[in-house]
């Protein structure tokens, strides 16, 4: 039973990382109809920024140093994402397919560039020892990183919910997702909201990249980590319903739990190691057959 609790916490932590990625994808798609394939590279660049800082920072092994590393990872993701929107997406307004294709090209180019600079060998981020330790909860030992990921996920969800409901720009983003032309007709600059959702999504992705490396990958960063996570984030967004933040949160938890439970209870047998990943695809197929618009999506 207590093993079950430990696995559940691990699944929730994984779901939190998925949510950090999916929330940005969902906000961007909801407002702009752009499916951002470059989200994976925001993630990877965030993790690499964290690695570069932590390898130079003398206090990287302390809690304050890790907070700083996380802040830099988020900032790096945000800056790259904002630049992507301004330089590549903006000239292509009104051409949604070209926007998707340009993000694919950006991902291809930047992953190649990272491979050229760092090589295909993974690097290790310096983190506080506490983060890689475990906490005993009854008879179970739960990795501290799980709690950090879970806490970050909940905090970002709360912050985004508050931002979308209470602030002027949050309301513009929600209104724009509902009816872009109407918002524009009211004299509001929607273009600024476009840059803003990219910035927010990029920051969350940068943070997710760092957390994924630290919590689930033993501190390793490699150039293709973003692309692998991105596919699961896409699945989360589609299950939750494109454009729905609450849907993304629910789907992220669902996907994280399914993946972890199946891997743990069935994946131990030989030849079934990837069953956890495959089961997530099955969940997607079932949800789409029952509700083509996703859990909380508007029916198309």
């Amino acid at each position, binding site marked *: 039973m207590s093993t079950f609790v430990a696995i559940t916490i691990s699944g929730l932590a994984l779901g939190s990382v998925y949510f950090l990625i999916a929330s940005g994808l969902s906000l961007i798609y909801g407002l702009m109809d752009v499916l951002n394939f470059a989200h994976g590279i925001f993630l990877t660049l965030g993790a690499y920024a964290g690695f570069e800082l932590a390898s130079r920072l003398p206090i990287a092994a302390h809690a304050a140093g890790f907070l700083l590393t996380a802040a830099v990872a988020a900032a790096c993701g945000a800056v790259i994402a904002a630049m992507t929107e301004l330089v590549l997406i903006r000239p292509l307004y009104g051409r949604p*397919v070209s926007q998707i294709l340009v993000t694919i090209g*950006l991902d*291809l180019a930047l992953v190649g560039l990272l491979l050229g*600079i760092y090589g295909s060998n993974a690097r290790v981020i310096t983190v506080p020892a506490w983060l890689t330790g475990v906490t005993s909860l009854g008879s179970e030992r739960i990795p501290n990183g799980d709690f950090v990921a879970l806490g970050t996920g909940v905090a970002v969800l709360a912050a985004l919910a508050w931002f979308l409901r209470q602030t002027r720009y949050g309301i513009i983003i929600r209104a724009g997702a509902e009816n872009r032309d109407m918002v524009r007709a009211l004299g509001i600059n929607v273009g600024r909201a476009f840059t803003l959702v990219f910035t927010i999504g990029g920051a969350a992705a940068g943070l997710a990249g760092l957390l994924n490396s630290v919590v689930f990958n033993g501190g390793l960063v490699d150039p293709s980590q973003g692309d692998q996570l991105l596919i699961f984030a896409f699945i989360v967004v*589609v299950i939750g319903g494109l454009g729905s933040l609450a849907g993304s949160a629910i789907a992220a938890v669902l996907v994280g739990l399914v993946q972890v439970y199946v891997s743990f209870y069935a994946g131990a047998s030989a030849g079934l190691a990837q069953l956890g990943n*495959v089961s997530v*695809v099955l969940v997607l197929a079932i949800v*789409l*057959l029952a509700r083509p618009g*996703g859990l909380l999506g508007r029916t198309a």
Partner: protein
Amino acid sequence: MSSVLGSDQPAAERHEAGTRRALARLGGRLAGAGPAGTPRRGGGRTGVIVTGCVLVILAVLPLATLQIPWILPGPVDVLNSAGTLEVLGLCFVFAGVAVGFDLLIGYTGLLSFGQVLYFATGVYVLDAALSVWHWALLPAAALTMAVGGVLAVLLGSISLKARGIAFAMVTLAFAQAGYYLIEDNPHGLTGGDSGLVMSTSRLPGMLVGVASTRSLYWLTLAFLVAAYGITWLVTESVTGQVFLAIRESERRTEVLGLRPFPFKLASFAISSLIATAGGMVYLLLVGTAAPEAVASTTVTVSILVMVVLGGLGTRWGAVVGAIVYVYLQQYLLKIAAEPSFSALPAPVRVPLSQPDFLLGAIFIAFILFAPGGIAGLARKRRPAKT
């Protein structure tokens, strides 16, 4: 918006006109007006002559011992060297797969991100049949095509329930599931992470050993011609007109009294089967199946880049795009291996040593400045005769 790609016309009027034209042609054909209303695009007879000449040159190319320094991607600068022929073969395989993919995304407007699944099916089912079960080539190939067809119809019917972006995501997810299954190495059929080398014991002699280079080259060329021919036949048929109509407006097609679903599934299945056949030819050419090279999402992205680089919905654009892509990739790798290359300063050398970086940058430049791809550039250079 039912079809993603139909919505991406630069000017709304052109989009409207395109819809009307496609639907009018379709309506005329259905009413029994015959093909009279179909204006011939391309150069007609000139196009046939040019295509014929290019084909003849490509077919006799393995017999030419011409030395062309610098241009050729192989390690030796001789036109019919094994290295050059193999790179050209690879170009033709991907050109065939790309033209099949163009049928799906360019002509039917269905943006799929799962094309690699059917390519990988071709590679891995044939490999397992030849190397694990030791079947002869013909039954193995027949089995592979059957598996590819069943898989395409089955997964196609499920993923076509979703529309637009959701369709793209579902196909992506299925392809990823396939990748994970291959990595899992069920019953030792795929070799897992390390891949599965093809056993040549049951292959006909002409496909084995040093002498096989030429026959494999001709095989890839034959595959490209077949893939192009099938795509050409389909797109010029009434069914192809329905594909175009679905791309332009699925709802209007329905109003005309046609159920789009079987047509979309047909397009999906034909395109997937071409990819499966391409996978088989790839295996015979390369001789080994590795999950990263034939089953990962990277392959889908490559095929997509080839088609878009060449120009969506133009057939020959996809062929040119694929050949340019594969050739550049191999050629850039050759350049990066030159001894003089390592003398370059790091800020120049590092980006240039990564074909993906350069291809990605070229792709972005095309999207921003020449969205019609190579075919669009060619059309602009040589305006249509009135």
